[in-house]
């Protein structure tokens, strides 16, 4: 079946199986910034933005996004570079496998909250697992990004 949607501000048409999830459709179409880390919708590395809200592309049927807006890091290069800058400063980026998904969550967090508390930040990113960093450096980077402090 054909699905039309907006991917990173461009109209696209994907030919998909009815049961296909967006993660597989994107990777099949060479959009490899979106990763697969698990089979149970729990790790967050496949995060994309659906109409600006973070969702797991592994549990989103491609057939269900007709006409909707999907954003990956590829469509937000300037913003993601800024987040990456804070991560670099804090030494928060280790293997990086989870980082593209996490960056989208952080970008959405900034849009959604004006002045989130520490607990609200942690709650917002709790679904983005990371096995390398120990989270504290990520947390400091996120706080500096939200505060806009260079």
């Amino acid at each position: 079946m054909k699905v039309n949607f907006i991917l990173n501000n461009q109209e696209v048409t994907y030919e998909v199986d009815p049961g296909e999830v967006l993660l597989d459709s994107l990777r099949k179409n060479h959009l490899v910034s979106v990763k697969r880390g698990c089979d149970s919708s729990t790790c967050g590395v496949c995060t994309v933005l659906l109409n600006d809200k973070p969702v797991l592309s592994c549990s989103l049927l491609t057939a269900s996004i007709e006409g909707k807006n999907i954003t990956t890091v590829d469509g937000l290069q300037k913003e993601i570079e800024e987040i990456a800058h804070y991560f670099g400063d804090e030494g928060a980026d280790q293997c990086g496998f989870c980082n593209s998904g996490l960056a989208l969550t952080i970008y959405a967090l900034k849009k959604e909250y004006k002045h989130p508390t520490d607990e609200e930040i942690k709650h917002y990113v709790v679904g983005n697992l990371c096995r390398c960093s120990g989270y504290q450096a990520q947390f400091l980077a996120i706080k500096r990004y939200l505060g806009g402090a260079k």
Partner: protein
Amino acid sequence: MKVVKKQIPSIDGKGIMMGRPAFTDDLAAPDSLIIKILRSPYAFARIKSIHIDEARKLKGVELILTHHDVPRNSFTRAGQGYPEPSPHDKFILDEYVRYVGDEVACVAAIDEKTAEKALSLIKVEYEVLEPILDFEQAIDHSTIIHPEEGIHEMFPIGFEPKRNLAASYHMHINNVDETFKSCDVIIDEVFYTQAQAHSMMEPHTVNARLDFQNRLTIYSATQTPFHVRRILSQTLDIPISKIRVIKPRVGGGFGGKQALHGEMFAALVTWRTQKPSKLVYTRKEVYESTYTRHPMRLKMKIGATKDGMIKAIDCHVLSDTGAYGEHALTVFMVTGSKVLPLYNKVESVRFTGEVVYTNHVSAGAFRGYGAIQGNFALESAIDILAEKLHMDPIELRQQNMMKENETSPIFKIMGEGTEGTAMNMDTCKLEECVHKGLKLIHWNDTYPKKILNEHKVRAVGMAIAMQGSGIPYIDMGAATIKFNDDGFYNLMVGATDIGQGSDTVLAQIAAEALMTTVDKVIVYSSDSDLTPFDTGAYASSTTYVSGNAVLKAAHQLKDMLITEAARILESKPEDIDFDGTIFTCDDKQITLSHLANQITYSHEQKQLTSTASYVGHKSPPPFMAGFCEVEVDMETGEYDVTHYVSAVDCGTPLNLKLAQGQIEGAIVQGIGMAKFEEVKYNKKGYLISNSFVDYRIPTAQDVKKMTTEFVESYEASGPYGAKSVGEIGIDTPPAAIANAIYHATGVRITSLPITPQKVLEGILKLKGDRNYE
């Protein structure tokens, strides 16, 4: 120093976060055949028959492999030195399956759906055998897990498969039994540590293709590309010159990718079909069919005089290697060799034990291997001893622990699988680490505990640890630096960046030596065709071993540059002053960029490259003191680690933030192991903890406060004074948390993980005892 010891962001973090293709599956050839593995549903069985006709008939199925179709060469998946200290006890596919998840057959098809359908059409008749699921019952059990012919050890490691022994070992210094007789206080305790799963975010991934010279090119998420090349060649009977292994960016390893998992199948499928293929493990497969940490039982007997001098340590370890003996002996030996020397003033030591086969997922390398298990037992035991001596646990440690310029005879006796290497602790700031940690955790304000309210108690606990920096005389790293036009450099290393930031740190070392900036040093790691050899990313070796190779190569190249400049400036090399960008001799000058362009394009042209290798002659241990503060709910047994302080001597931290990241990441993995991570099976040996839901790893909400500080030393044998920092962080949390829980509750937990349930049971038992009295 201009580049090392500076806060330099990783050279690749930005590009990766921005989504550039970097990882193995990002680089798979389009239209690769999809490989799926049929896995054993039984913990132990013999394949009586296997029928693949129906599956083979399915449209889109390109190849099916069973144990009838693959070369029968025994090998070990462990990527270690060669010959390996692990038994060659594995076949690519075998008529026996030895754990739930073991490989039965391999299917390659045009897409995932077809491959999965084909798996379901393979008919296997099993003779189900009685498994061994309790590792304490394994030795001389009526079940023999490896009854097959053709398996062997590479050199004596105590391999006795008919007794279910993958390895065994015995060492002693003086006579512990005699020394115990002269001790005033003796403690004798048994500890258990559980299997932990690596849970790196990128699943094990491999893809293969033939290049236009008909050579086999493997892309693998591996920590050991050169071992992969060798083992593939030895096992598949493909000439090693026909194999190229490329290691793209690896999405976390922690030892879990220090072995071959899918490589055999991708290589075979592509070699036989001549088509590109790929195998991406599902998360379930990562848990079910790769590696765990070795679970252990540790008996720890310690004797001391009444004034707190530790005189004898006797340690017996039983280790569960699961179905195959990967790293069986070495993990077990590290349990002694990187733990017992902490208390080096003893008169006598004995370290013995066995590593047994069971029908569990194979155990393998995992960050801090052996050390974290040994540390939990020893550092819990030291606190138990302190209490029995009525002594402060800090004082007991300070009185007995390793100090700078001291040594331990254990270093010479115990290596990794072989004899060790004698060495002096030229740098050891353990004492300073303890002092610093005490202050940062506000030990004296809390120790041993503080009642916060009716049911909440705050307490502190600590442990000390040591690790190593590579394996002396075994681990080799090499680096090539190429000088380019306009004056920038390529640094090619066999070392593997698996997320720890080694590409960045190695670039810093080269840049410092060449007096340039990191952006002028372009790092490429690693590709068996292009980069020089390196044993791989393990044993805390990259900064120390590979870093030394980079430093040597950079110094050599600098000498070459100065020689060229002297020729152009018509002077002698010793008269040239070079500041990284300009060569000066009296009133004559030439810039690096001018020199580069001249020797590239116009005058006596040549390519300058420098290659150097390094093998350690010792393994200088980093040291640390880990302190934790916990808050325990006395009514539920629930507790939080509210603060974890790490005071670390890793020599010179070459990149402060990256070193801190290594420590903090390891601390959180250690806290996970201490608190809740546990690989669990049902009674039939089926893995229950086979997803992120059933195997919980720490999340952002689990992490409260961490303070990491470095107590700098200068290790003269390391690059710019560095020792290692990759593993040591994981060692202290289990013991430090157990000690803190004891201070809070009076409950001594001797078996990991320290769950609220165990704590509560202990609290209730203590209460009951008191009521009874």
